[in-house]
C-alpha cells in the first residue's frame, strides 16, 4: 500500500489529480480541521448556527475519512499507509503512518468528537467565544498525535492538543474551572519539558527523530550510548505516563475533568488514551529490536503503574458520588487497564484492553454528557442514616416495613424522557462495570484470560486480574448508588427535559456501545489482527523506512 501510494505521488497531469484526494487521505484528519477552524476565525459569534453546521459537517467528514482509512489498512497486506510530508522520505522528512491501531484511534476520536460537538452546540458552545475553532483544533491535535511517525512532531501535536484542551477546559471561565486550569496547565507544562529532555537525549544518542529509525539505530548503539538512549526513553515515558494519567502522575485528572463543561469533559476522555497509545506504540516498536532490551526495561513499570492506576481509579469511583467524578475516575481505570495490558506484553490482553478501550471511551463520554441531563432531575435526600444497627429481628425488618408497605402496592409509570435517560444510564453503566450483555463483559473476560494465561509472574497476574475484576465491582456499586438516587425517587414522578440535539449524540454513543457487543466478532477479529501486527513491527518498520526510497 505504502509503496503504490509512493508511485502515485510521482505525479501525473494536474487534471487527473484535481479530483483525486485519495492519496492524501492520511493527512486530511489534520488539514481539514485546520482549514475549517481557520475559516471559523473569520466568523464572529453571531454566526453560531453557521459554525455549528460547518463543524458538524467537518467532523462527519472525518468519521468518513477514518472509516475509509480503517478499511484500507485492514484490507491491505502490509496493513500500513505511509504519507511523506513535503515529499521527504523518512527519516529525513516527517511521515504520517496509518496502521490498524492508528486508524482505530482516529475512528474513535472522530466519533466521540462528533457526538460531543453536537451536544455542545445545543447550549454550551455559546458561553464564551471561539469554542468551535478550539474544538476542531483539539481534534486536529489528537489526530496528528495518532498519525505521526516522528518523535518531535509528536511533541508538537501534543502541544496542539494540550493548548486546545487548556482553552476548552477554561471555556466558560468561572472560579472552579480557572483553578482547575491553573493546576492542569502547570502539570502538563512540566511534563512537556520532560518530553523535550527525552527527545533531546534520544536525538543525541541516535541522531534521528523518526520513531522507527530511532529503534533501528538504538539496536546498533554500544556502551554508554545505549544508557543515554534508555535515559531519554525513560524520561519520555514519564511524560507519556503523565498524559495517560497513570498513578502517581494522575492527580490532575480528577480535578480537571469534572471542572470542564460536560461536552468538553466528554471529549477529554480520549486524551488520556493518547498517552496510553504512544506507550503501546513505543513498546511495540521496541519489541522489534530485542537486542536493546528496551521492552524488559519498560514493561515492569507499565505493568505495576497500570495496576496501581486501576486500583486508584476504583477507589476514586467508590469515593465519588458525583457522576462527573465517577466518570473521571472511570477514565483512569480504562487508561490503567490499557497501560497494564501493554506491560504484560500479551497480545490477547492487549486486544482485550483495546476492545475495552473502545467501549469505555464511548460509554464514559456518554456518561459525561448524561451527567448534565441527570443534574436536571431533582435530587433526593439520602436515606436516614440514624437507624440503629441492633434491632430485635434477625436480619429482617418487616415490622417497620409492613405498615408503610400497605397502600404502596401500586407502581409508578416512568415518563418517557426519564425512561430514555434511565436506559442510557444503565447502558453506560453496564459497559463500564463490565456486566453482560454489553461489550464490557467480553472485554474484561478477554483481559483477565490473557493476563492469567500470559507470561507475567504469577503474583502480578493475580493482582492485575483481581484489580480489573474489582474495578468492575467498584464501578457497579458507585453507578448503582448514583442511579438509584437519580431515577428511583419515592413518591413523585420525575421528568427530565431533554432536547433532541442532546438526546441524539448520547443515543449515538450508546447505540455504538450496543453495536460493539452485537458485532463483537468482527471487531475483535480486527483487534486481534491489530495486536498481532503490533507484536511484529518488522513489517511496519520496513514500510516506514523504505517507502519511496
Amino acid at each position, binding site marked *: 500500500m505504502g509503496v503504490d501510494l509512493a508511485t502515485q505521488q510521482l505525479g501525473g497531469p494536474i487534471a487527473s489529480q484535481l479530483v483525486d484526494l485519495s492519496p492524501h487521505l492520511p493527512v486530511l484528519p489534520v488539514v481539514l480541521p485546520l482549514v475549517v477552524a481557520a475559516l471559523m476565525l473569520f466568523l464572529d459569534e453571531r454566526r453560531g448556527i453557521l459554525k455549528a453546521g460547518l463543524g458538524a459537517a467537518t467532523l462527519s467528514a472525518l468519521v468518513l475519512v477514518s472509516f475509509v482509512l480503517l478499511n484500507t489498512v485492514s484490507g491491505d497486506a502490509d496493513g500500513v499507509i505511509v504519507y511523506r510530508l513535503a515529499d521527504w522520505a523518512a527519516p529525513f522528512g516527517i511521515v504520517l503512518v496509518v496502521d490498524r491501531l492508528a486508524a482505530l484511534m482516529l475512528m474513535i476520536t472522530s466519533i466521540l468528537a462528533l457526538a460531543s460537538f453536537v451536544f455542545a452546540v445545543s447550549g454550551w458552545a455559546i458561553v464564551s467565544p471561539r469554542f468551535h475553532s478550539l474544538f476542531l483544533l483539539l481534534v486536529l491535535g489528537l489526530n496528528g498525535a495518532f498519525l505521526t511517525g516522528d518523535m*518531535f512532531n509528536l*511533541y*508538537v501535536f501534543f*502541544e496542539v492538543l494540550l*493548548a486546545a484542551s*487548556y482553552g476548552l477546559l*477554561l471555556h466558560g*471561565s*468561572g*472560579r472552579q474551572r*480557572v*483553578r482547575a*486550569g*491553573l*493546576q492542569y*496547565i*502547570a502539570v502538563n*507544562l*512540566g511534563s*512537556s*519539558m520532560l518530553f*523535550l*529532555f527525552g*527527545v*533531546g*537525549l534520544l*536525538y*543525541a544518542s541516535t541522531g534521528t*527523530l523518526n520513531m522507527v529509525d530511532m529503534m533501528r539505530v538504538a539496536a546498533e548503539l554500544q556502551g554508554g550510548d545505549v544508557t543515554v538512549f534508555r535515559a531519554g526513553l525513560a524520561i519520555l515515558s514519564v511524560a507519556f505516563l503523565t498524559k495517560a494519567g497513570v498513578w502517581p502522575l494522575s492527580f490532575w485528572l480528577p480535578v480537571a475533568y469534572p471542572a470542564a463543561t460536560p461536552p468538553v469533559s466528554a471529549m477529554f476522555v480520549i486524551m488520556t488514551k493518547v498517552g496510553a497509545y504512544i506507550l503501546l506504540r513505543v513498546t511495540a516498536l521496541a519489541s522489534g529490536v530485542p537486542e536493546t532490551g528496551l521492552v524488559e526495561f519498560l514493561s515492569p513499570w507499565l505493568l505495576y503503574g497500570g495496576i496501581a492506576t486501576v486500583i486508584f481509579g476504583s477507589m476514586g469511583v467508590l469515593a465519588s458520588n458525583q457522576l462527573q467524578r465517577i466518570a473521571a475516575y472511570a477514565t483512569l481505570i480504562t487508561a490503567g487497564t490499557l497501560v497494564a495490558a501493554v506491560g504484560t506484553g500479551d497480545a490477547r490482553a492487549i486486544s482485550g484492553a483495546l476492545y475495552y478501550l473502545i467501549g469505555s471511551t464511548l460509554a464514559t463520554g456518554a456518561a459525561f454528557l448524561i451527567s448534565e441531563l441527570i443534574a436536571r432531575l431533582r435530587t433526593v435526600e439520602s436515606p436516614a442514616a440514624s437507624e440503629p444497627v441492633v434491632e430485635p429481628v434477625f436480619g429482617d425488618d418487616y415490622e417497620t416495613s409492613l405498615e408503610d408497605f400497605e397502600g404502596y402496592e401500586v407502581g409508578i409509570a416512568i415518563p418517557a424522557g426519564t425512561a430514555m435517560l434511565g436506559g442510557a444510564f444503565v447502558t453506560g453503566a453496564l459497559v463500564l462495570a463490565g456486566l453482560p450483555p454489553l461489550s464490557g463483559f467480553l472485554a474484561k473476560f478477554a483481559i483477565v484470560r490473557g493476563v492469567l494465561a500470559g507470561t507475567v509472574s504469577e503474583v502480578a497476574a493475580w493482582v492485575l486480574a483481581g484489580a480489573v475484576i474489582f474495578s468492575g465491582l467498584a464501578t457497579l456499586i458507585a453507578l448503582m448508588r448514583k442511579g438509584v438516587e437519580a431515577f428511583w425517587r419515592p413518591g413523585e414522578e420525575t421528568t427530565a427535559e431533554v432536547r433532541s440535539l442532546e438526546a441524539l449524540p448520547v443515543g449515538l454513543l450508546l447505540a455504538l456501545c450496543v453495536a460493539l457487543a452485537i458485532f463483537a466478532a468482527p471487531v475483535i477479529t480486527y483487534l486481534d489482527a491489530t495486536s498481532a501486527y503490533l507484536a511484529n513491527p518488522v513489517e511496519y518498520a520496513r514500510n516506514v523506512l523504505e517507502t519511496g526510497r
Partner: protein
Amino acid sequence: MELVTAIGIGVIAGAGVWLILRPRTFQVILGLSLLTYAVNAFLLSMGGLKLGAPPILESVAGVDPSRHADPVPQSLVLTSIVISFSMTALYLVVLLAARGLTGTDHVDGEEPD
C-alpha cells in the same frame, strides 16, 4: 566546554525546579520560564557543540557537512521557543484570571489552612 555548558544548564534548571515547587503563581511562571531556557539550551547542545560554524551555506557548491553545526536541534529549539513562549503567555493570563476570581495568587486558588 561541554562541562561548562552542562553545569550552566543544570544550575538554571535547578533554579527553575525550585521555583515550580513554590506556592505562588508568579514564582511558578518564572520557574517555567527558567526551565524553558534550560530545556532549549539542552536541546541545542544535544547536537554537539560547535563554534563559529552556523548552518548557513556561503557557497552553494560542494558543501561540507562537517563544517556546519547540526541544524536539526536548532530547528527543534526554534519550534520549542515559540511553543513555550505561547505557553508562558497563556499561563500568565490564567494566573491573572485565577487571581481575579479567587482573590489569591496561591497555586491552588486558595490559601493553605
